[in-house]
């Protein structure tokens, strides 16, 4: 089933002097069951783009298809709740949305809103808290006394507990320490591989794009300018130069080797295959 945008435009504060067209005729077709990284410089429209997926923003023009639902410009969406249960959206800095007395209650908030039975909601919430790496001792604590990183984990567990088919993450690991962000990214990969969830990640971190994504969507000035597989993306020096993206370390190493006259054959996007290739080349 499609997750697609057709000629979607979005204007903030229309018909005022502050009008700003954040999306200009976006066409993109996200692949179901894959991890897609959405990249682009700040202000390019990434966040605006993903907020259309669960109808937080409605397009000014164009049409969006999310699984069996259609969102069209100027037509109110029926049954918003079921759409939002299907598409879970984790905001940038989601720790600011915590409000309940205990962490467990906060994670239960989402499922209860979507009509899950309390018993079931508690069960799934506990499961999700364990999944993001918070043990039983946290269940009854106040979410407000946690550190920033732990709050982030609670907030992400709060969306996971809704059990959406599509998980949209807006810079989920910005500001987390390296260990936590690695664990978090691995969790997303596992959710994708094991439960076959479609995952869209907005990120600035090229190492994460390289290590965890399948596809890459590049947003620039309100349009999607590229939609390619990860391998294609990192093999294409033109895109990297054009977007002024600092490439991941491995790509840099390859470029340096090339500059020294060592040309490697084939794709080598992880450490092992790169070392193998180097060994082969020099031997």
């Amino acid at each position, binding site marked *: 089933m499609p997750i697609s945008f057709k000629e979607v435009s979005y204007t903030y504060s229309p018909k*005022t002097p502050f009008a700003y067209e954040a999306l200009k005729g976006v066409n993109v077709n996200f692949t179901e069951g894959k991890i897609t990284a959405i990249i682009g410089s700040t202000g390019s429209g990434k966040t605006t783009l993903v907020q259309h997926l669960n109808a937080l923003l409605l397009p000014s023009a164009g049409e969006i298809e999310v699984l069996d639902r259609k969102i069209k410009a100027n037509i109110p969406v029926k049954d918003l*709740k079921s759409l*939002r249960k299907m598409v*879970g959206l984790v905001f940038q800095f989601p720790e*600011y*949305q915590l*409000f309940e007395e205990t962490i467990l209650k906060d994670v239960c908030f989402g499922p209860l*809103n*979507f009509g899950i039975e309390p018993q079931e909601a508690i069960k799934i919430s506990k499961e999700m808290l364990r999944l993001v790496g918070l043990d039983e001792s946290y269940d009854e604590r106040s979410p407000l006394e946690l550190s920033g990183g732990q709050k982030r984990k609670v907030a992400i567990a*709060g969306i996971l507990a809704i059990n959406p088919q599509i998980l949209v993450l807006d810079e989920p690991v910005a500001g987390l320490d390296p260990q936590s962000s690695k664990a978090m990214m691995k969790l997303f990969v596992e959710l994708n591989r094991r439960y076959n969830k479609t995952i869209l990640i907005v990120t600035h971190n090229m190492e994460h794009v390289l290590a965890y994504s399948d596809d890459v969507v590049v947003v620039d000035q309100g349009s999607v300018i590229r939609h390619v597989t990860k391998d294609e993306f990192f093999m294409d020096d033109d895109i990297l130069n054009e977007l002024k993206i600092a490439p991941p370390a491995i790509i840099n190493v390859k470029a340096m080797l090339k500059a020294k006259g060592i040309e490697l054959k084939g794709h080598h996007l992880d450490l092992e295959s790169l070392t193998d290739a180097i060994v082969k080349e020099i031997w």
Partner: protein
Amino acid sequence: MDSIALGRYIPGTTLIHRLDPRIKILSMLFLLIAIFIPAGFYGYLVITIVSLLALSLAKLRIGFVFKALRPIMIMMIMLMVINVLVVKTGYVIITFLGFEIYSGAIYQTLYIFIRLVLMIVITTILTATTKPLELTLGIEDLLAPFVRFKVPAHEIAMMISIAIRFIPTLIEETQRIMKAQASRGVDLKEGKFKEKIAAILSLIVPLFVSSFQRAEDLANAMEARGYVPDAKRTRYKQLHVDTKDRIILLFVILILVGLIKIAIFI
């Protein structure tokens, strides 16, 4: 949020925009006082003409002023209804659904209506043509003589400017939290009463938490830069009173005095 006109600054470079904020605040005060001088309908005619003159000098559209009046319309209608029903002086004009409407009531209501509209128009001219920060500078200066009576002029001005500065930030924050909670199934429009309460709580608690956090951060940032409230401070923006300011102030004072004369004469 974009439709709020009351208290909004409209950028411009007209004479009214360029007036010294202190003079503008004083003129507004004098005109507000003038509204309450019982100089009859002629008095209001004079103030109305002055307001229209100021509006055209400031190049503000009448539509903008009406927009500013809109939120207060309900209050005005309430006031008028109560007045019409309660005041029983003069002679009966008509009997409407068993209520006798007196001529005194009509006069009284018209007075209140005109006063309220004029007050809002005059304050709107002030806020629409003065940058919020200039306004607070003006307030600070005007309060300066009262410092000897322990009025914390600078602190009041600082609090007002911080409050004004954070209004857009808070609106943005509220919208962000609303979206985040909407993603967790909160529906502010539908649902039972109990659900609505929970929905509002899910918005207010995070808003409070982040506001306190922000306040603390701001206080720390100010302290880190050596801010002491009662220290003597110099200003980047210097206010000057020049000829045009003096003329305007004189003009307004003349109107005030004139109206007092009319009131005594009547």
